[in-house]
């Protein structure tokens, strides 16, 4: 079995490099500056994982793949950041629902041992059924998101924002579209990419932000509910 990580980052490799170097992974570590993985696998929030078998068929679609913050017992240092917005974000994040401590890792181990006989391998019909809804609006949102990234990488931020806004409007449940866009305009400093919202004294280019949205929808549905 092989683990492959893919960093979804419009801005390129430098933003994620520190994390990769700190982890010193032995598995392939890939970069996806165009978010191809989003559309190809139905990834709508990160981190997510997909299982692909020896025959190059998907046997589990995109789903969260780590324990819930509460399950680990670890306290986020962001709760003590001293910044009100970051503390509020961290407080919401601790309420996010995912697996218990070893639940997902044990499922991966079971697949590694038993292959197609693993009880965690899904049928083709179940994989497609669990892969998430997509209608023409969802397709249009992906197209707008691709255009937004194209313009952002080319330095045309205004046109990028117009397309990011359309993507958010057409696919309001897609957190990846929002988190990527909102991460591009944070204040300088250690929380730049995680600020995800307006700053005092500055116009905000979007209709919503991370805190507003998660306080509206609730952290329990931050990741699409699923089961092993």
């Amino acid at each position, binding site marked *: 079995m092989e683990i492959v990580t893919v960093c979804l980052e419009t801005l390129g490799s430098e933003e994620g490099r520190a994390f990769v170097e700190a982890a010193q992974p032995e598995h392939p570590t890939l970069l996806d500056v165009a978010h191809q993985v989003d559309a190809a696998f139905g990834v709508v929030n990160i981190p997510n994982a997909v299982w692909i078998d020896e*025959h190059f068929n998907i046997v589990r679609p995109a789903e969260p793949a780590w324990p819930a913050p509460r399950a680990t017992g670890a306290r986020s240092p962001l709760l003590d950041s001293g910044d009100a917005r970051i503390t509020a974000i961290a407080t919401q994040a601790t309420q996010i629902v995912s697996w218990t401590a070893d639940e997902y890792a044990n499922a991966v181990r079971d697949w590694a041992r038993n292959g197609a006989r693993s009880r965690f391998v899904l049928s083709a019909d179940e994989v497609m059924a669990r892969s998430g809804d997509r*209608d023409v609006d969802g397709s249009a949102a992906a197209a707008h998101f691709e255009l937004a990234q194209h313009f952002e990488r080319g330095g045309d931020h205004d*046109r990028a924002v117009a397309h990011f806004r359309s993507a958010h409007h057409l696919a309001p449940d897609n957190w990846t579209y929002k988190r990527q866009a909102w991460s591009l305009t944070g204040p300088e400093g250690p929380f730049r990419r995680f600020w995800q919202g307006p700053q005092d004294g500055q116009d905000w280019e979007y209709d919503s932000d991370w805190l507003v949205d998660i306080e509206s929808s609730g952290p329990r549905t931050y990741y699409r509910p699923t089961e092993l």
Partner: protein
Amino acid sequence: MLLPDLFPTSTAFAEATGWKIEPHGACKGDLCLPLAPGTYREERVDAATVADRLGMAVVPAEGGGLWAIGPESFSGRALATVAAPDLKLQTFDGKAFALSSLRGTRMVLVAWAPY
């Protein structure tokens, strides 16, 4: 898929969308959907017609000069087939990497981001 016009080569269309345009239709994995005659001519694909057949949105860029075609939606689900898409990405040290290079091995693909 970004296009300067709506008549890409069949190779470019397949690489960007995962859908191969065959004489009998548009195919991905073991799934094929028939296409109207004339959709594929002289190595070029009528992308707007194929997009309509597959439920792919065609979106013009702000200011013009560019089009984006979204992923298929005809099935109503993000995955219309379980055949994994053969994405071609780069490693962090700049080397080309095709997901299909791991065919024959079980793979857990983990998407993450530094934000």
